[in-house]
């Protein structure tokens, strides 16, 4: 579904992504972890081309994301990749419901009434039907992130990307967001999720990718990676994480 082929990216002299060769299968859930600044956000932002790359290819559902293409083609491609940000990025001038309606209506030209019905059922799915008319500033962080997930799902994407979806949240709100993501995984959604929530990764991930300094140093099942990491950097990272 998502395939990285010899992907490299530089910021000046600094190599943020170095020779990335990995793929995410259809229905697979991959958790990406690694120390701060290792390039996790950059990696998943290259999948929908919020970041450009310098060499290599990224295929999404068989389509080369970084090929030369018309703007409309890129917009269509992006509309098929759900993206959830660490800082939610809800549109503050729109109610929760309108946040979810806007893009299906304007990008996919779904009629207002239909978009609204679907938005309501998505808000229901993330447990926020009762708050549909609230504005983002009136919602807690956990609620905002659940609306953001509903907003991404409204485009009916075949895959979802999450960039640390719970790390801006108060601890008591992490669970409600992870529960929604877990539900998606159970429904067979293809996902890449940057997170340091180990128990979540154990439950949900098919594979874990460990990144450091722009490279994927180790991949494996959650049991193997968390149980017996091979790479010394991964061992140090996990022991730091546990001692926090």
């Amino acid at each position, binding site marked *: 579904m998502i395939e990285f082929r010899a992907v490299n990216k530089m910021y000046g002299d600094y190599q943020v992504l170095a020779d990335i060769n990995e793929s995410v299968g259809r229905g697979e859930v991959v958790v990406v972890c690694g120390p701060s600044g290792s390039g996790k956000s950059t990696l998943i932002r290259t999948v*929908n081309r*919020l970041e450009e790359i310098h060499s290599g290819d990224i295929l999404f559902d068989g389509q080369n994301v970084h090929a030369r293409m018309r*703007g*409309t083609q890129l*917009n*269509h*491609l*992006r*509309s*098929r*990749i759900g*993206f959830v*940000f660490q*800082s939610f*990025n*809800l*549109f*503050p*001038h729109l109610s929760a419901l309108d946040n979810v309606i*806007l*893009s299906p209506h*304007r*990008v*996919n030209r779904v009629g207002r009434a239909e978009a609204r019905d679907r938005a309501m059922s998505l808000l229901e799915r993330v*447990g*926020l039907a*009762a*708050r549909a008319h*609230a*504005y983002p*500033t*009136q*919602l*807690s962080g956990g*609620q905002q992130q659940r609306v953001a997930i509903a*907003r*991404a799902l409204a*485009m009916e994407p075949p895959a979802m990307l999450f960039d640390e979806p719970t790390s801006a949240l108060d601890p008591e709100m992490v669970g*409600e967001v992870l529960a929604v993501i877990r539900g998606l995984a159970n429904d067979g959604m293809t996902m890449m999720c940057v997170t340091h929530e180990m128990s979540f990764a154990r439950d949900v991930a098919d594979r874990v990718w460990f990144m450091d300094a722009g490279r994927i140093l180790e991949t494996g099942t959650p049991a193997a990676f968390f149980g017996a990491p091979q790479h010394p950097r991964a061992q140090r990272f996990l022991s730091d994480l546990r001692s926090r």
Partner: protein
Amino acid sequence: MLASALAIARDNWLLLLVGQYPNGPLGGIAATLMLSVLGIGLAFPLSVLVALARISRWRALRAPATALVYLVRGVPLLMIIFWVYFLFPLLLGTEVPGFTTMVCTLVLYESAFLSEVVRAGIEALPAGQMDAARALGHSYPQAMRFIILPQAIYNMAPSILSQFVSTIKDTTLGYVINVPELTFAASQINNRLLTKPFEVFLILALTYYVVCFSLTQLATWLERRVARRRAGPALVVVAAPS
């Protein structure tokens, strides 16, 4: 002096309010406000376009817009009035009424300033807003129209209102090309009375002050409201059933 100022105001209130109207052109406060409303009203859509051109990634749009803004901001309004006053009739080959000349000048002048306000509003928004819009598949024009501009303009509403207040004061310069606005009306009265300049211009100053002060107060109120909306309500109501 106050008593005689009041007497002058009482005798000339209609002239101050609407000028010679309906026997002559509309003047006085009515003309001043109309000039300002038309000036800002027409300058506003133009300023959004100029702001968009200023932040465009295409040089061909950016360069002329930037040049326009720098040029207009670097020249006194009076110069622009003269340029429009002498150039327009030449270009169009017909006479242009003073009122129209003044509206065109104000649109040109205020759109340069307003465009900087709008641009600041756009650039003050977190980058995550554009990221989210693009990630959902919106085109750049769509992202601007539905996501960026509504927020930028809402946040900038107080500054836009302040610019409106400046515009009211700027209309006084219409006097030099005989646009019959408020200052023109006052100077007509002054010419007729000859001996009461202090009283007449006291009335004039007070009138501008009252109009501009009320609008400034409105801008301040709006500013507080916008700040509150941006920060979110002080107390989050209703524990949400989740």
